[in-house]
């Protein structure tokens, strides 16, 4: 027959060993959660956090009567990034996109990045939300376009802009002269990237708000400019 006292003693030894193990686990847990926390958060942030600059919309150029001569418009384009070199996957994703947007253009299997659709409309962006999450290959990219009223003399006066590191920079005419005023100051944003370098949903945090550029008001009217009286 079992000796109850000896059995209890052995069982107590086991319980004590398990309890000691639990205490070691708690100590380690406390170490990572409290004592060494800052160090591991720093290391983790190095892996995941990225600072991004974003630019405010370039301000408008208006004539003395308040008629807008130059302004910016934002468009969104849908791209396919060829991450896998798999024609089957390309086809699968293309078919999925086509269900949502019948006008989608088939991406090229030979290019690293192909445009599927230019200038998406807001309802199309909403419809694509789930696919963007499902397929890392899909990417919606914003694009800014500078528009100028369609009079040749006004175009010459206003000048031209070009994209430099994600922002519009004036390279001639009034766009160049008032570039600093029109551009404003960039904002800073901190985001977290996941293991696949995708932006983690809701992880963004603003560090500095962007300062919008100021509209430039001219002393002449659009008619005067057209007639060369500016």
């Amino acid at each position, binding site marked *: 027959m079992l000796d109850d006292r000896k059995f209890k003693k052995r069982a107590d030894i086991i319980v004590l060993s398990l309890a000691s193990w639990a205490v*070691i686990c708690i100590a380690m*847990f406390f170490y990572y959660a409290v004592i060494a926390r800052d160090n591991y958060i720093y290391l983790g942030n190095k892996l995941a956090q990225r600072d991004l600059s974003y630019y405010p919309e370039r301000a408008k150029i208006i004539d003395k009567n308040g008629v807008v001569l130059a302004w910016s418009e934002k468009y969104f384009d849908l791209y396919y990034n060829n991450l896998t070199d798999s024609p089957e996957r390309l086809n699968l994703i293309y078919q999925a996109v086509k269900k949502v947007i019948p006008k989608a253009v088939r991406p090229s299997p030979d290019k690293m990045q192909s445009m599927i659709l230019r200038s998406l409309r807001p309802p199309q962006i909403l419809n694509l939300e789930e696919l963007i999450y499902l397929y890392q290959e899909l990417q919606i990219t914003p694009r800014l376009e500078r528009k100028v009223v369609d009079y040749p003399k006004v175009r010459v006066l206003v000048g031209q802009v070009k994209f430099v590191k994600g922002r519009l920079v004036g390279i001639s005419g009034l766009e160049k002269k008032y570039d600093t005023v029109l551009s404003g100051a960039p904002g800073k944003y901190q985001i977290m990237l996941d293991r696949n370098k995708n932006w*983690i949903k809701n992880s963004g945090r603003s560090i500095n708000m962007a300062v919008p550029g100021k509209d430039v008001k001219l002393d002449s009217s659009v008619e005067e400019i057209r007639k060369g009286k500016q």
Partner: protein
Amino acid sequence: MNQEKFENQIFNATVLAQSLLFLLCIWGCLAIYNSNTLGASPLYFVGRQLLWLVTGMIVMLLAQRVPFSFYSENALTAAAIAYISLLAVLLWGTRINGMRGWFTFGWTSASIQPSEFAKPFFILLLCHIAVNGKNKLKTFLRLAAATLLWLIPILLQPDAGTALVYLLVFLIVCVLIGTPFKYLLTLPALLTPVAAWALYRNPYILKRFSGFWDPASDPLGSGWHIRQFQFTIARGGWFGVKLGKAAWSNSYLPLSHSDSVFATIAESLGFVGALPILILLGIVFFSLYRLSLRLRGQYQKLFIISMLSLIIIQTLIHISVNVALLPPTGLTLPLLSYGGSSLLSTLLAFGIILSALNHHSPEEAHSYYN
């Protein structure tokens, strides 16, 4: 009068255990939800887990009503069925995460892991061998042979973590029945060839050890999982980030709803919110352990302590892995991790434990050696 008091204590311990187990399972559901809030279907895993929880609670209540004599008398048959399922899964099982350990049923997309369900039946088998043994050496050899046979199909899956749990429980049964120390010393000699064979067949085990030893040397490869445990727990701090905002668990931590669920809880609820898991499990363990020592039936007593030890060992291995104290083993946290097999088998095991506690009588004492 004493008997009546004892019955009352058993009743109270049963109600306490049932309530705390349910609470822990709900805690687990919360963690599973939290690990998927940023995913495309945040409610998918937690919805399934809630279904398993309801089924599991029914299984536990039913298993508790069956007299313990039914389990003890049919221990060999149950163990044989469980063993056949372990063999069958090697032939017809599905491979998930590199392990052929599941039967999947296509029409339901549900899967069953036989090595989880085999746990209570393995312990019933060990207890059966132990209480019927007359000679210490023969009993030890029978226990060792049964364990070795049990480990082979599990290592072939390969599932080194579960094999480790089985091995530790075998040791606990040996210690509880008073196996002489010199017999236990022969175990390293017996286990070395098995370990060498397991390492030869599964080189990933060595990789996990190297990643554990120096995670910084290969932070994007073998050290990745360990690093993510450290980062996830650190983000939790004292009180955790807000519920539903566990960005690290959602984005970096591998298997955040199953093998890494403790770290997920730590990130969401912090040190203060995750510690009660150990405390609640400790309360369940001690209340049942204390009462089991007063039972007369040797089989019950041995089964309750061994089964509770198995659950606690699995819990401690899971937490040890999650706090970077052990290399990743792929073990779930009983009651809290996502997985129907793990949850059902643990609740079934608690049902049998409660049956052993509630269906006791002085006549049930078995012969046993000191």
